[in-house]
């Protein structure tokens, strides 16, 4: 099939929407495709209408989209992650439903809800979205929100760059989203291995959508990594020595370092793939000196560190909440620091376990197998540290602790199945089966996802001034735990029975019982998602009752709990002088933690700017134009990026100054407020009596 390329519209024409497929043939496959596109279109229309109706465009623009404040950027990342998660989970559900109906016979081998090609798109978008546009935005968002506050800094080292990173990530997410409506996504899985994804076997726009989404958002993540690292090295409050940093800051540092060193590998492998596809290079071709193994190696040089990028922030969250909610100091702080750093370093030495079966010698395989198993040691240390932290503490079963408990039970299973897979001879048997699918979901969902949701629950009051509803929070957590178990534990069994991953169909009736269990699980996952959104909604409705203006609803020990909730734009009225690890806890122990600072001074904040939005628009334009071969638009967008930067460089940009009098006034109001509120004991923490001022006599952390 040769397609003509118009000079104006490139390869775009009316045949690219799923509605065209629906017109051609009505079946469950084309209905699902058109339905998904309709959800996207309707969702966009409803959102735009709602914003217009409520007259939110102004505030959205002024307070959010143009804000270089790391806290707001963090929240926007998290919103992006949650929206994308809704799509990812829905796709997971469609895939499970497809497989449940996909039992074929010898006479009719292909069956099921969607066509095989469509199924391949589903697992490719699902994997891509979940890793790059759910897990990454959630963790980057959480770090953005929490890290400066915990370090005693007002903002990231490079606030405007931070905005640009968000813009690039959103542009990438936008490309994946638009592929629902315009054209198709690739079918090569989230790894997009050539030569299958080369131009010969995958002509068309699908792989290009992936390539440009990854290149653009990957650049954003690299810049984020730099930003985090420089913030930690240069912006700590006076007295915040490295060994006084909360553990979440340490794991953020690990993440930063890994982003800096790992993301370039992804950039290179995707750029090489793009050169192969667009310019006929032969990096990964089958003949003429191409070598596909280079793709596998470079991709996984990124890919393995990536999975630790995903998990380490969750480890950071669990360190914070295990200590806060059991009212004890974190057990084994130093060992946790060393363990995190070891994980970060070792994770660069194990990438080959992703392709044990691709032809290296047994000696090489076993070296990487052993390296992989070694990571279990620091990880195990951490699990014991958290359990020891909770041991004999007065543990409150809040939502984050429900997630933590689920994590303890399930993550260990996932970790152990990882050790099993790390053994090359076993891997030869089960690689590429749903055993593997079960394994990685088993670490990503109870690890990353639970960690991020626990973190969101924990820091939510700091962002918005009110707690999330505990009852619905716990319900959501339990639904996720149960949903996870029913969906994914059967996949271990199915994998051992021989079901390959990414199978659009199968002919073995013995698989069916497990398929049905997994389908029930997928329904529970959908319910959990709904329950999560319901939690946000009812909490918002009850926000006056759930308000915690005192700012310290959980009797915490780290700096971020010393400020009001919601935290003001400038975070601290005056940069704190840190004298101990868990400085806020030490101040509590010394009595009268809410003493006002002696002096206030003007605060300089970065001014709002359009820069991030402009760069995001240009890079989205570039990606879209490249996907559809609209060369003029590609050139314009490409030149726009340095142009935008040059224009900004020419201007002298004045910071925003917040006068000392305003800071003093707000701070006085906050301190009076705290004095007027009744302190709450731990036992009452989940009730309406919790207004954010804890009973100090109970603080033991």
């Amino acid at each position, binding site marked *: 099939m040769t397609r003509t390329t118009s000079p104006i519209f490139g390869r775009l024409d009316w045949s690219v929407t799923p509605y065209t497929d629906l017109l051609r043939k009505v079946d469950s496959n084309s209905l699902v495709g058109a339905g998904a596109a309709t959800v996207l279109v309707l969702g966009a229309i409803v959102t735009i209408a709602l914003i217009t109706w409520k007259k939110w465009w102004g505030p959205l623009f002024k307070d959010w989209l143009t804000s270089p404040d790391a806290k707001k950027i963090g929240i926007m990342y998290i919103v992006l992650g949650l929206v994308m998660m809704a799509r990812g989970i829905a796709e997971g559900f469609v895939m499970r439903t497809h497989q449940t109906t996909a039992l074929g016979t010898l006479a009719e081998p292909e069956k099921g809800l969607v066509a095989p090609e469509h199924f391949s798109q589903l697992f490719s978008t699902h994997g891509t979205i979940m890793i790059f546009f759910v897990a990454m935005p959630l963790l980057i968002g959480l770090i953005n929100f929490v890290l400066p506050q915990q370090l005693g800094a007002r903002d990231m080292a490079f606030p405007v760059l931070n905005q640009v990173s968000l813009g690039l990530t959103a542009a990438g997410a936008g490309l994946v989203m638009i592929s629902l409506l315009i054209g198709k996504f690739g079918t090569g899985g989230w790894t997009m291995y050539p030569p299958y994804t080369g131009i010969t076997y995958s002509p068309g726009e699908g792989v290009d959508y992936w390539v440009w989404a990854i290149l653009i958002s990957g650049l954003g993540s690299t810049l984020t990594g730099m930003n985090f690292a420089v913030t930690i090295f240069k912006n700590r409050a006076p007295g915040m020595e490295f060994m006084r940093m909360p553990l979440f800051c340490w794991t953020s540092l690990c993440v930063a370092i890994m982003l800096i060193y790992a993301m370039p590998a992804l950039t290179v492998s995707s750029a*090489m793939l793009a050169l192969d596809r667009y310019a006929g*290079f032969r990096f990964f071709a089958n003949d003429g000196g191409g070598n596909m193994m280079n793709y596998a190696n470079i991709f996984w040089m990124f890919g393995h560190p990536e999975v630790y990028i995903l998990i380490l922030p969750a480890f950071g969250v669990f360190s914070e909440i295990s200590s806060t909610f059991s009212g004890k100091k974190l057990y084994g702080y130093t060992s946790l620091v060393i363990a995190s750093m070891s994980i970060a370093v070792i994770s660069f030495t194990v990438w080959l376990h992703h392709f044990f079966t691709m032809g290296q010698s047994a000696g090489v395989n076993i070296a990487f197998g052993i390296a992989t198993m070694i990571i279990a040691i620091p990880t195990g240390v951490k699990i014991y540290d958290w359990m020891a932290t909770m041991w004999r503490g007065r543990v409150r079963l809040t939502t984050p602790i429900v997630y933590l408990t689920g994590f303890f039970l399930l993550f260990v299973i996932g970790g152990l199945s990882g050790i099993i897979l790390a053994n090359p001879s076993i891997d030869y048997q089960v690689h590429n089966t749903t055993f593997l699918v079960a394994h990685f979901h088993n670490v990503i969902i109870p690890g990353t996802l639970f960690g991020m949701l626990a973190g969101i629950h924990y820091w939510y009051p700091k962002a918005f001034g009110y707690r999330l509803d505990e009852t619905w929070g716990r319900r959501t957590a339990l639904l996720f735990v149960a949903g996870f178990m029913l969906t994914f534990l059967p996949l271990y069994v199915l994998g051992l029975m021989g079901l390959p991953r990414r199978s659009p169909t199968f002919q073995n009736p013995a698989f069916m019982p497990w398929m049905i269990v997994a389908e029930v699980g997928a329904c529970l996952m959908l319910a959990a998602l709904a329950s999560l959104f319901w939690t946000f909604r009812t909490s918002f409705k009850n926000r006056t009752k759930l308000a915690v203006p005192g700012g310290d609803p959980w009797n915490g020990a780290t700096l971020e709990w010393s400020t009001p909730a919601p935290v003001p734009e400038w975070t601290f009225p005056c940069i704190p002088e840190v004298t101990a690890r868990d400085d806020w806890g030490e101040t509590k122990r010394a009595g009268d933690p809410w003493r006002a600072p002696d002096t206030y001074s003007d605060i300089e904040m970065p001014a709002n700017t359009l820069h991030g939005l402009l760069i995001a628009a240009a890079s989205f334009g570039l990606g879209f134009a490249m996907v559809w071969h609209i060369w003029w638009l590609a050139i314009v967008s490409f030149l726009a990026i340095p142009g935008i930067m040059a224009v900004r460089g020419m201007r002298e940009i004045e910071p925003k100054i917040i006068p000392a009098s305003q800071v003093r006034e707000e701070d006085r109001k906050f301190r009076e407020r705290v004095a007027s509120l009744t302190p709450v004991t731990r036992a009452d923490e989940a009730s309406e009596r919790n207004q954010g001022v804890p009973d100090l006599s109970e603080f033991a952390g």
Partner: protein
Amino acid sequence: MSDNTLYPGLNLGDSHGEAHVGAETTVFGFWVFVMSDLIIFGILFAAYASYLDPLGLAGAPGPKDLFDIRSVAIQTGLLLLGGTAYGGVSLSVKYNCSRARVLGWLAVCAALGAGFLFFEIKDFVSQAGEGGVPQASGWLSSYWALVGLHGVHVSSGIVWIIAMMGQIVWRGIDDAVKIRLSMLGVFWHFLDLVWIGIFSFVFLVPLA
């Protein structure tokens, strides 16, 4: 600020007050960026090495057929001189020399960089004429990608130099401009460093 926390390289110095302090964070951040960029080059070097065998060469024109070591030597000379010339920029900024002086040194850097690009592109064109196009073999793909990426870096360095010259004319050598000039310095020297790797491993090793 004690001296041992300064970023590596030529600092502005205490007399520059705010710019000196601000440069600390910003230029450090730029070092981190360059480190990340170095990984990109590192991977491309590794890929180049992996394609440098009969399988990767795949019967297409190889190093011995394509490389003109004289031209490469000229390029090396021009680029390294350009790097040295940036010392003029840094010192003129540090010692508060006139605007014209800074602009002059920047122009020298840009000119030497452009000279480098001229010879590099000339080589690329003649190699393509001899059948050494990137589509011809895995090795050629990796050669074009690695050396080409360096060339793209040099071109963007030149664009950056021109943008800085614009800023100097437009807004003068204020704190922000000083900091940016320090970053540009790190970038410009980084390109020399990568080139030394390219010169040795891409050109000399296969010819040896």
